[in-house]
């Protein structure tokens, strides 16, 4: 897959990529998995967009002590899938890539909603799905779903 090779070369050359791992799409599902510094993400996103990639999804994973952000980019016709993983929780907030991919707007709001991870200069970072309650981040490992989270009365502000 010569096209894949050229992509590998570009990925190595980009400054922020700290470690690039090639994976096979048959048993892992993605071609390249690279770990990256949070501040390098917008630059990577812009570079991938020029290559014709689109943002499949953006999510976070909580491993108890640390949390990491996972970005997945793929192409339309010949799907090389690039997965960018960057450490999130103890580090400072990751910059938002809404400027490059508007699709990330809601996905970042959902990650903020479920994990409490902030995103720098996001146009309107507020909860996407859940009610406005401090500290309610259900997908965190330290979250315990008590009875008070099921079916209590909620006043949403009327417009």
């Amino acid at each position, binding site marked *: 897959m010569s096209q894949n090779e050229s992509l590998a070369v570009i990925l190595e050359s980009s400054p922020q990529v700290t470690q690039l791992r090639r994976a096979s*799409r048959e*048993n*892992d*599902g*993605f071609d390249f*998995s690279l770990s990256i510094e949070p501040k390098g993400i917008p630059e990577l996103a812009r570079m991938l*967009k020029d290559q014709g990639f*689109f*943002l*499949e*999804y953006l*999510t976070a*994973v*909580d*491993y108890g002590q640390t949390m990491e952000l*996972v970005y*997945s980019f*793929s192409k*339309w*016709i*010949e*799907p090389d*899938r690039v*997965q960018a993983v960057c450490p999130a929780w103890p580090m400072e907030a990751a910059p938002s890539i809404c400027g490059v*991919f*508007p*699709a990330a*707007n*809601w*996905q970042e709001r959902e990650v903020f909603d*479920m994990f409490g991870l902030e995103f720098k200069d996001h*146009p*309107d970072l507020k*909860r*996407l*799905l*859940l*009610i406005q309650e401090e500290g309610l981040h*259900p*997908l965190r490992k330290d*979250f315990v*779903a008590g009875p008070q989270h099921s079916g209590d009365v909620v006043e949403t502000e009327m*417009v």
Partner: protein
Amino acid sequence: MLRKTLTDDTFYLNMGPQHPSTHGVLRLLLRLDGERIVECEPVLGYSHRGHEHMAQTRSYLRFMPNPCRMDYLAGLMYNHAYCLAVERACGIEAPPRAQFIRVICAELNRISSHLLWFGAYLLDLGGFTPFLYAFDDREDVLSILGEITGSRLTYSYCRFGGVARDLTPKFIELTKAFIPKLRVRLKDYDTLVSKNVIFINRTKDVGVITKEQARDYSVTGPNLRACGVPHDQRRCEPYSVYPEIDFEVITADGANGEGDCYDRYLVRMQEMEESLRIVEQALQRLPEGPIRAKGVAQEPAPPPGAYQYCYESARGMLGIYLVSDGSRVPVRMKWRTPSFSNLSILPILLPGTLVADTVAILGSLDLVIPEIDR
């Protein structure tokens, strides 16, 4: 941003959460200037049940009924995708007969999902009758699938490494009878709706999505194919037995890569015919053999690592990102559902259109709201 005080003479209209044409519990906060829409902000979360939280606290087997409840129109596809993802993580391979059965049922499920979309879309545009015809056809598909899965919407029919029950001769006979019947019906729908001048005026050049917008908002599925991009997961990243089945990816011949409501409608109608062809070929090529792989633990525990699986559901690309630490309960299971990004394009499609167009555009995107809120 939207809640600033009203200086000009626009007024807010809450379309939803209870509204006849939002297909599920979605609230569109519209700012209207008379009939014209100035701004639109979808408000989500009304049917959020925390599927991903449940995935983190339950073993793979106990999470089996959940995927069908995420997208209740394409329940079997979600179940199929979930089993394929776990099989890829554990390195299991379903026997060929089971793979063919799964593909037949998934394509029948795609037809029933498109039929319901067709009926509901016409109902939104004011045509009451096609809704009943579409449901009559869909009833046949549901009774066919009910023959072997036992239920009509929430199937949980696939198991890790195979399927729960083998095809019965009655199932094959019913499917063979259903295929020509639906082809005749699709021709009737063609004359009744596709060529109807009122329908064409209501949907032509309404809610136009360009290729760049589709890429920016990562729109997938029939909405993307209506912009002329032949992106179909079954063809770009073939999985299961799709490489052996010959079918084409339907794209509307949208003028220079722009898909409007009418193109999206045409793409889905032709996709139904394509699915019929797939079911026909799969039925002919159905091999004999076992329907469950041997030696598969009921409670799988995939080796530690991160796995990703992409599947073509009725509404677009369904991605499952699985992080496992070797135990029977996943660390994280992210469901990338197509309607989430398909809806995110709405706020840029609506400004400038009329209220009646909102319903047309929303219907043409074929959204299922529980899939967005998860």
